[in-house]
Each structure stands twice: as C-alpha cells, then as structure tokens.
C-alpha cells in the first residue's frame, strides 16, 4: 500500500516574506510532514530556518538539549545538541537558483505526549562545502500541534520561489 500522504496546504513565496505559517491544522491525521525548498536573503551561503509550534516561544531553556544533529560539510563531520527546532536553508551568497531542501516529520502531532520530530536536510550549492543534516528533536509540550511557523533565525526574509508544503499522514 502506498504511503497515506495527503496535502493540506502549499505556500509558494511570490515576494519576500519574513515567515511562512500553516494555521488551523486539521486534527484528523496521525503525523505531519513539512517539505521545504527554501532560500533566504541573508548575505551568507547559509541561513538557519527555525520551526515554531502554536506560535509559542520554545518552552525549553538553552541548557536543555532538544535537538541532536549529525552534519557533514563535505570535508568534515560534526555532532551536536542544542535547543530549537531548525534546519539550514541556502542564503543569498549560495549559488544562484539553488535552494536548501528539508523534510520535517512530526509524529503523533495530536497526541497528549511530547512530540518527536525527525529532520533530514541538504543545502546544496556549487561548492565543495555544503551541508547534509540529520536531526532528531523533541518538543516538550503535550499540546496538539495546531499551527506551524517557519522563519529565518537571522531575521532576514525568505526569498521568492521558496516553497513549503504541509502534508497529513495517516
């Protein structure tokens, strides 16, 4: 049986925006998947893209790791733990027309337990250095996920032609 994946909403950025949101998320699925192809205006090769649930300030302290990352850069590998659900997106100094890609998978999003999230992402550019990331995260909140917001950590904008799609998974 094919994966039971159902598109809920797609946002295609037509002009630069400071954030992208999915609101009033239907509560009838089991898991959620967010597929991202994005680029930001920060004048660096990469920028950090944060994900926030229910418009809440993340309810964890910087001393409590909630995300664990393994990352390859093309020449080195690193592993770290930190707070804040995030991924990388291409910045303005990445190769023109290149966009970072990421899949966020949010399990049991309507349940009354903490939410486990996995992320796999790549920020390809025409250079020897580019990042491939695998992340595991925990949102320490028993609330159902009713909205998701993505925004650059730098405060810059998300550029035109970036796309964000929310899927429900049965």
């Amino acid at each position, binding site marked *: 049986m094919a994966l*039971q994946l*159902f598109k809920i909403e797609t946002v295609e950025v037509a002009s630069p925006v400071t954030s992208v949101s999915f609101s009033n998320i239907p509560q009838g699925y089991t898991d959620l998947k967010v*597929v991202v192809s994005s680029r930001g205006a920060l004048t660096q090769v990469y920028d950090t893209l944060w994900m926030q649930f229910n418009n809440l300030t993340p309810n964890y302290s910087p001393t409590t790791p909630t995300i664990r990352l393994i990352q*390859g850069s093309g020449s080195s590998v690193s592993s770290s733990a930190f707070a804040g659900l995030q991924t990388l997106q291409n910045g303005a100094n990445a190769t023109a027309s290149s*966009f970072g890609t990421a899949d966020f998978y949010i399990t049991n999003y309507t349940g009354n337990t903490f939410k486990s999230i996995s992320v796999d992402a*790549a920020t*390809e*550019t025409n250079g020897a250095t*580019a990042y491939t990331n695998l992340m595991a995260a925990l949102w320490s909140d028993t609330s159902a996920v009713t909205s998701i917001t993505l925004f650059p950590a730098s405060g810059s904008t998300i550029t035109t032609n970036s*796309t964000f799609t929310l899927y429900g998974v049965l």
Partner: protein
Amino acid sequence: MAIRSLKTGTFTRSGMAGNPVIMPGSYESIATVTANGTSQSLTFSSIPQTYTHLEIRGISQASYSSNDYGAIGVRLNSDTGSNYTRHVIRGNGSTVPVNGLTSTTFAECGDGAYLNTGSTVGASVISVLDYTNTNKYTTVRGLSGVDNNGIGAIAMGSGLWLNTAAITSLTIFQQNANFTDKTTFALYGIA
C-alpha cells in the same frame, strides 16, 4: 463525483452518497523498474509533469565481487556532463567518512547498493523536490543503507544539478558493476 488520477487522468471510483468515503491521496505510484543484470543503470523516462515532488524508493545489489557497499548516483534528463555537485556523509560502524565534490557527473544518493550477489540488498529513499520548477536548480537528496552482517554503512547524500530545466527523466546508476535482478526502484509522484 469520481476520483481522477493525477498520473493517468482517468476517473475511478465514485464519490456518490452511499459509497465508502474516498480521500484522494497525494502520493501516487508512477512506475517501477527492475534490473535484468545487463546494465549499471535504470531509467524513468517521460515523467509526468503533474506532481510537485518526486520520491524514489528502491533496493539494489550490483554484481561486483567484493563484500562491500557502493554508492547510488542519479542523473537527470540524461545529462552525463560535469554539471552536478555532490556531498555525502556516511557511518560504517567505525568511522564517519564525508566527501564533497564539484563539477561531477552525478548527484550522490548514499550507499544503497550491496556489491556482490547473494541475499543482501541495500535500500534507498531519494527525494527530488520541485522537479517541474524552472526557477530552481534541482537538488537531489538520498538516505540509504546496507548491512551484510559485518560490512555495512548508512549514508545521506545530496547533489545539485546546475540546470533549471524541469525533470523529464531520471537515471539511477551504480558505478562499480551491473545491477543484479534483485534491484528494483519505484518512482512516486507527490502532489
């Protein structure tokens, strides 16, 4: 009201009252290819342009006489030129090799092939996002792994095709040897 397939355009099933509730999904099988032992590559051609993203899932084995694992590469629209970048991170149980290259001839999708005959196969899941979007270079991302009870690796690879053309064909290949007939890849369209 009938349900219309994104792939074929044909109508199936009825949504009239009294019939079972139908929820059209966003993940649809497009094609499946199986190797016959005579080639190092498999191609999906004439890919419908009606989806948003593509996903390829497969198992693979190559007839290379070693007890090892090998990379799965992807080429787009039959482009065999040096028009790709690729990067990979892998773990083999003892080390974490990484690699990054520009001006290469394929996008990296990780170590999804077992390099020998027998019962072991590798597994791969490959994503191609926004494949019809002509404002973007195409990024390919793969997660794969092989384990042969001692030899094995898990890898995540990615690649950038430096071309904004819509993807109409996709070729999966293995560098070391021909795919055996235990190799199958399935292409899915995601709305």
